[in-house]
């Protein structure tokens, strides 16, 4: 019940934001939403799938670059480019994932890093198409997206829809199967689950939604940079998942808000904001190993179990 109320409040706040917040904070909120979607898409494979997706940023970058190149070099209309971005990212997920799911644990992550770095170097060096290390700037968009309220509306709407879809996936039979695979792939296999096929499907889905985040970034910033494909960004999203709690759905969103907020707000006063992030991470590892939302969820569950005890007293075994 209270969960629905909370969700309603959050949606109302998102809708009201452009009317009440100064433009800078509207922009910041949009950035948090885009990054939050990116981190949540990673968490589908990381937290729910138990896969070491070390280079998720690649799919974000591919989504963004596809849209940017489509508009500036190929003259596509914006809607086509924005549709092509996530599809290209999903396709890249299919190709990279096809090889990665054949490897276990750490090797999965290492292969992903190397394949991803390959994509990065292409973006960095193929000047005629990708603009090389300059990236692509001033991407022409329809007039409505050139205003902040317009871009914000697109970002907020698409992120809410995407999160709803991801939430549905997590709760679907597919989501439950994915969690079962995370806990025990061998057991899943002998239960009749094609483990690799599920893992690959999860990677494609996650890549698709990372691609959605990528095109939303283009809508918001009207530019792309090769650093979107660099492994440092992938590490940052990983940190967001861990920080927020990778066994919860909302954790990565919270983690993204913390990191983006810290970078933007503290970054205005000091270039050492990463130092603050580092200290925060160390504290977290020691005191909240399950992440912010993981910790809150555990306390909430404990509270509910305590208040519900009289009703289920019959369950207690002798």
């Amino acid at each position, binding site marked *: 019940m209270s969960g629905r109320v909370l969700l309603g409040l959050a949606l109302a706040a998102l809708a009201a934001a452009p009317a009440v917040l100064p433009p800078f904070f509207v922009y910041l909120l949009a950035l948090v939403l885009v990054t939050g979607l990116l981190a949540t898409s990673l968490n589908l494979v990381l937290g729910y799938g138990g896969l070491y997706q070390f280079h998720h940023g690649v799919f974000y970058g591919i989504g963004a670059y596809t849209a940017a190149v489509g508009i500036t070099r190929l003259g596509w209309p914006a809607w086509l480019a924005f549709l092509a971005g996530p599809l290209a990212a999903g396709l890249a997920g299919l190709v990279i994932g096809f090889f990665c799911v054949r490897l276990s644990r750490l090797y999965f992550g290492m292969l992903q890093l190397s394949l991803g770095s390959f994509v990065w170097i292409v973006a960095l060096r193929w000047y005629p198409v990708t603009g090389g290390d300059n990236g692509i700037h001033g991407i022409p968009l329809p007039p409505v997206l050139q205003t902040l309220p317009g871009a914000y509306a697109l970002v907020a709407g698409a992120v809410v829809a995407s999160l709803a*879809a991801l939430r*549905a996936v997590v709760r679907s039979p597919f989501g*439950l199967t994915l*969690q079962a695979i995370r806990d025990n792939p061998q*057991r899943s296999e*002998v*239960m009749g689950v094609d483990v690799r096929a599920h893992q690959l499907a999860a990677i494609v889905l996650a890549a698709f939604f990372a691609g959605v985040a990528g095109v939303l970034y283009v809508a918001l910033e009207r530019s792309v940079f090769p650093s979107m494909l660099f492994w440092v960004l992938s590490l940052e999203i990983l940190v967001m998942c861990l920080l927020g709690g990778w066994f919860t759905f909302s954790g990565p969103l919270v983690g993204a808000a913390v990191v983006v907020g810290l970078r933007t707000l503290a970054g205005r006063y000091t270039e050492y904001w990463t130092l603050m992030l580092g200290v925060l991470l160390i504290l977290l590892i020691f005191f909240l190993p399950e992440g912010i939302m993981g910790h809150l969820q555990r306390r909430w569950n404990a509270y509910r179990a305590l208040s519900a005890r009289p009703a289920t007293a019959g369950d207690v075994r002798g």
Partner: protein
Amino acid sequence: MAELLRVEDLHRSFNGFPAVRGASLSVQAGEVVAVIGPNGAGKTTLFNLVTGVLLPDRGRVVFAGVDVTRWPAHRRCRAGVSRTFQIANVFPRLTVFDNVHAACLAHARKGFELFRPASRFAVEQAWEILEVTGLRGQAHRLAGTLSHGDQRILEIALALASRPRLLVLDEPTAGMSPEETASTLQLIARLNRDHGLSVLFCEHDMEVVFSTAHRVVVMHQGRTIASGPPEQVRADPEVQRAYLGGEEAEGPPVRSQAAGGAGKPMLQVEGLHTYYGLSHVLFDVSLQVQEGEAVFLLGRNGAGKSTTLKSVVGLVPPRRGAVRYRGRDVVGLAPHAVAQLGVGYVPDDRRIFPDLTVWENLEVAVRRHGYWTFDRVFELFPVLREKRHHRGSHLSGGEQKMLAIARALVGNPDLLLLDEPMEGLAPRLVRVLEDRIRQLKATGLTVLLAEQNVGAALRLADRGYVIDDGRIRFEGTVEELQANHEVRRRYLLL
């Protein structure tokens, strides 16, 4: 009866060690078949080959008339082969309900249903299976927090969710309490009778085997050596020699001078409470070993024997309680520090260094010089001298066990902790090893022996303890234990 499963001359090696070399058996529709054989006979490998967890080097697996030899596990499961594992193998972070629900969804082929909630599919089936297996009351607990016995039952529930035609159970009652064992057997019998489910299982508990199976297949050193109705197999002289008779080794019991516990206390364990993560495994375990004594610690699989030894040597530090070695508190010391005090430990899983030669394995273990030189160790285990230049991974299971013991000895310990030294050894080797341990006792070494092989332990030790469910249930001499039928029946299943 129609033939449901036929296994023809399967072979499978691991790094040159043939775990299964010539296994053949068949299961008719509606039949319950047991596979017995000593530890390390290849039973689990055989089950892995039947269910597709491993693929064979050679041989055929035919299920319901179809050659499934190269099929992956998930495909065999869909064809109707479902299994449990020897070690509880569930989804620890999911609730019991979600565990079974996931299995039902897999069976219903809903794994790729992406956007509709899982709660719309296969929910009644999941509840039905929880009902049948008696897990309904615990549906909302996390599977990882269930007791060992309940996790084993959840295993069976997961296997049933795939609506199998053949249920393959790897030691289904290992580590279960007698009541849990009884109810599990009833469940298996009911499924067989009411639903015509065929069952292939392996088990060390002979009562379970002879009361449940229609037919028994005997495995020995990777081969199936006999097959027939339970009474016939029990009477087969070859089976007696290879497996059942292994218990009746000759040789009178040796009593050391300190028998009866009159010597100086060497090891004192008091009120030990040990946890693995959240699960509480040892409850108030106390025991004493006097200098020069050989003490047994008996109990079934999962009773807490290994954990007790690991708590003593510091591998799994206890949360509460005291461990004193020669009067000195060693709780909190790192395992290597405990070893340097003179405590030798032979782990049940051997843990030899696979890439080092036999000689090197021994060399790294020398802590101090004393009675046990390489020559004396080789005298004890001549086969190790022959193979001193072989790499550890190329030794047989039994030889690895000897190496593990030799490695502990060259450290010249004053107290030797042996965890299941007999496990995984062929019956003949068990007798050789028994002999050797007797010789060790004669040199004045103090021994704490954790064993499942009750016969051997009682022949070797002076007195000791019986542990069950992490609690000491009995303390006394060998004669007292032999006279106490209640303890033997309840905790040792004799």
